[in-house]
C-alpha cells in the first residue's frame, strides 16, 4: 500500500494518459551528460557497425548522409522523470544501416565519442524503432543534444539513445553499458517503469 501524503493532490495535466508511470511533462529540453561534451567535426566523423565475426561496416559523414533519411516525430522519456512530447528529428533508420550486415547476434552495444556505451537487444534497433538522428527541430543536431549524430530509440528511456554515437557492436552475449553497470535497468522500458536494477 502506498503512503498517502495528506493534502497533496498533484498537478494532473492534459495528456497525462500519454505519460508513462512516474513521468511528468516538460516543454524545454533538459541536457544531462556524464562528462564533457565532445566536439566532433563531421570531416572526421565515422560510424561503424562491427559484427560478432569481426566484420566491419563504416560510413563517413558523406556516405552516411547519402543514405535515405526520414522525418521522425516521437515522445521522449528520460529516467530522471521528464518526458517531452512530439519531438521532431531527421535520421537514418537502423534498418537501412543494418540492411547489408550479416549477423546472428542478438545484442548490441552502442559506442559514443567520449567513451559512453549503452546496450540493448538488437531487435529493439530493427523494424522502424531506431535511428541515427542528425537533425532536431529543423536544424543540425547541436553537440549538447548529441550532434553531429545520436542514436534515437524512443521506446526506451533516453539514456539508451546514445549521444555522439560512433558505432554499434553486434554481439552474441549481452554486455551492460555505462549506466547499466551503475545501477540502471538493463532494458529500460518506460511503460514498465524499468528505471533501476530489479525494476
Amino acid at each position, binding site marked *: 500500500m*502506498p*503512503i*498517502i*501524503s*495528506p*493534502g*497533496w*493532490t*498533484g*498537478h*494532473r495535466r492534459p495528456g497525462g494518459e500519454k505519460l508513462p508511470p*512516474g513521468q*511528468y511533462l516538460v516543454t524545454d529540453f533538459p541536457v544531462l551528460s*556524464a562528462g564533457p561534451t565532445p566536439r566532433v567535426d563531421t570531416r572526421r566523423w565515422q560510424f561503424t557497425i562491427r559484427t560478432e565475426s569481426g566484420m566491419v561496416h563504416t560510413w563517413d559523414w558523406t556516405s552516411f548522409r547519402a543514405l535515405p533519411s526520414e522525418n521522425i516525430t516521437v515522445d521522449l522519456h528520460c529516467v*530522471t*522523470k521528464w518526458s517531452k512530447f512530439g519531438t521532431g528529428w531527421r535520421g537514418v533508420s537502423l534498418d537501412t544501416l543494418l540492411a547489408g550486415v550479416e549477423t546472428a547476434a542478438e545484442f548490441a552495444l552502442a559506442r559514443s565519442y567520449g567513451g559512453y556505451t549503452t546496450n540493448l537487444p538488437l531487435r529493439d534497433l530493427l523494424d522502424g524503432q531506431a535511428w541515427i538522428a542528425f537533425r532536431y527541430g529543423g536544424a543540425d543536431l547541436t553537440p549538447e543534444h548529441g550532434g553531429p549524430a545520436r542514436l534515437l530509440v524512443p521506446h526506451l528511456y533516453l539514456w539508451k539513445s546514445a549521444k555522439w554515437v560512433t558505432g554499434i557492436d553486434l554481439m552474441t552475449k549481452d554486455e551492460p553499458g555505462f549506466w547499466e*553497470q*551503475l*545501477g540502471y535497468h538493463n532494458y529500460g522500458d518506460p511503460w514498465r517503469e524499468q*528505471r*533501476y*536494477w*530489479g*525494476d
Partner: protein
Amino acid sequence: MARAAVLGRLNWLVGEVTELRDETATARTIVLSVPGWPGHAPGQHVDVRLTAEDGYSAQRSYSIASAADGSRVELTVQRLPDGEVSPYLAESLVVGQPLELRGPIGGWFVWVPADPGPVLLIAGGSGIVPLMSMIRARQQVASTAPFRLVYSVRGPADVIYAAELAERAAGCT
C-alpha cells in the same frame, strides 16, 4: 569522481520526517529516519514519491545532503513556484510524517573518501546539495584531500547552508 554502483534491487522505503530546517526562504532541509537505509556515497540521490488519496502519484529525484550516518538521511529541497512535488516537501510536510523514497541512486557523480586527490566543487543555487554531502563526508572521515568550493547564487539570501559554509570556511587553513 568514480564509480560506486548501486547493488541489488531498489525497493521503496518509508522514512519518517524527524526534523525540518529552513535553509532559505525557498529551500528546506528534510531530515529523515529511514529504516533499512543501505547507506550512500556522497553525491548520490533518491527518488521521492508522493501519493494522493485517489492513488495519483508523482516522483522526483532529490540529492542527498548528508554524509552517510546509519538510517539518517537529509534532503534539501528547493521549492519551485509551480512545482508539483517540491512545494509540498518544502512547505506542507510535517515532523512525524511518513515519506516514501528509494535509493541511493547514481554512482557516477560521487566522491570516494579514500581518494586523496584535490577536488574542485562548482555549484549554482540548489546544486550545492550533493556537493554538501561530499564536504560533510570529507570531515566525517577526516580526509585531508584539498577541497575548494565555488558557489554561485542569485543573491545573498539564496545561500543554502550559509552558516555552516561560513563556519567551515573559517576553519580552513
